[in-house]
């Protein structure tokens, strides 16, 4: 590990001041992602700002009737929070589908949003990777790319966001609360991550002088009609090839509102409002859900080593939507 210094922030104002004053410093909460990258010499911060003492580790009701998850609340504590389990089971199930119990017990909400996109080459310093070293290209586009993006990759980068929790947050339209020198602001989940474009090292729209303080779950949790489906090569030590968060509002057999987020296939959880709109007013027949899945994947592109991923995503979305429509009794 490269020698570095650290500063322990005791309150949000101090953390923001330290972050704003030193653009080269990196924040650390649990470190499950950052320390891994530091061990691989992919990240070499000269200074860490330790956020673990900030008073951001509680879950409380939010003013609009939703639930506010402090940025330092761990994934395990969110998954097992009784109101989250009852009102937002999609979030609990997504968290419990991912990682291992010790990792879930460490990983924080803020860190989960900020975890680096993953690919076969991001943490291999012997290969070109535009995310790690801008301008070097993406070895995976013409190489081993089984786990890489099928939606939204740029010519320079094709790594994917690996989080399960974030797929559920995308479907539920969570709101991310940030604090910077100018005060606090709220950012819709969909506006948080950045497409790779020509600047893949900038994975999010979090300003360099701001920190995440909380994630708000909106009042509507879609508890009655939801499904989280994750497909991976094996059930341990593997990231999702495809994961799906489906959340529906139903009137009898008719879908009145649909949310559909796909994980493991792009630089961020992938949603498509046009695909979701196709479900409105329909019943969840095989044909109807398949049309929505096809619409979401209309621009999907494989790069040679993942010929099955697109079909896998199609089928997984169909299955998740049908399960969500069937409701609790069929789960």
């Amino acid at each position: 590990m490269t020698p570095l210094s650290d500063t322990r922030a005791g309150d949000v104002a101090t953390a923001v001041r330290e972050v704003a004053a030193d653009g080269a410093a990196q924040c650390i909460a649990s470190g499950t992602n950052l320390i891994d990258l530091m061990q691989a010499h992919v990240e070499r911060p000269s200074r860490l700002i330790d956020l673990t003492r900030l008073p951001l580790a509680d879950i409380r009701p939010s003013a609009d009737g939703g639930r506010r998850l402090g940025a330092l609340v761990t994934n395990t504590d969110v998954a097992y929070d009784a109101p989250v389990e009852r009102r937002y089971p999609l979030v609990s199930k997504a968290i419990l589908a991912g990682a291992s119990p010790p990792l879930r017990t460490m990983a924080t909400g803020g860190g989960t949003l900020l975890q680096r996109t993953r690919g076969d080459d991001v943490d291999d310093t012997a290969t070109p990777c535009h995310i790690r070293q801008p301008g070097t290209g993406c070895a995976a586009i013409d190489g081993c790319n089984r786990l890489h993006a099928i939606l939204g990759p740029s010519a320079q980068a094709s790594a994917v966001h690996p989080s399960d929790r974030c797929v559920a947050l995308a479907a539920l339209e969570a709101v991310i609360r940030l604090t910077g020198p100018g005060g606090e602001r709220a950012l819709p989940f969909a506006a948080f991550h950045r497409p790779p474009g020509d600047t893949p090292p900038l994975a999010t729209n979090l300003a360099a002088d701001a920190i995440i303080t909380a994630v708000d779950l909106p009042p509507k949790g879609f508890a009655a009609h939801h499904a989280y489906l994750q497909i991976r090569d094996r059930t341990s030590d593997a990231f999702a090839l495809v994961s799906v968060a489906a959340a529906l509002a139903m009137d009898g057999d008719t879908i009145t509102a649909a949310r559909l987020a796909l994980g493991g296939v792009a630089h961020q959880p992938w949603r498509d409002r046009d695909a979701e709109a196709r479900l409105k007013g329909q019943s969840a027949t095989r044909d109807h859900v398949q049309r929505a899945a096809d619409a979401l994947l209309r621009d999907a592109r494989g790069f040679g080593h993942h010929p099955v991923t697109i079909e896998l995503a199609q089928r997984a979305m169909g299955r998740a939507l049908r399960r969500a429509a069937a409701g609790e009794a069929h789960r």
Partner: protein
Amino acid sequence: MHHTPAHDVPMQPTASWPAKRRITLTVNGAAKPFDVAPWPTRLDARRESLELTGTKKRCDHGPCGACTVLVDGRRILACLTLAIMKDGAAVTTVEGLGEGDARPPLQHAFVEHDACQCGDGTPGQICSAVGLMTEGRANTADDIRERMRGTLCWCGAYPNIVAAIDQVMHAGERGAGR
């Protein structure tokens, strides 16, 4: 050839090497201060500074779980956290769970079910199993398998590990004749 500073040779802070900081950890029940640089992981600090080598270093990246320990009663990976970030925490390593005649039932069950084999993953598996039982979310063998995810066994003794945990988890019920 080992080039990293040995634990018995104090590292001299220089202008380019940030100074160590004094932190306090309660390790296996004993609170003690110790001086640590900002960058060693808990795993390295424990093995090299505290000479507690029960916790094993394997992948050093998270997936294998060999370095699982309990911090404030919850299982975490020592290789992915910095020692300096846990100032004030209570850490339990496999040594702290009891040795010799004081070994807890779980360790006896691992021996009884031949769940140890090469033993390199065993300290992490034992700590993870203690954390699993504390969480209280597992009831069946399938639950144990799912919640022991991420603690690898290089010898493939998974059925024996699950049987050992299952036996201890349900010992009270069996003892009561159910």
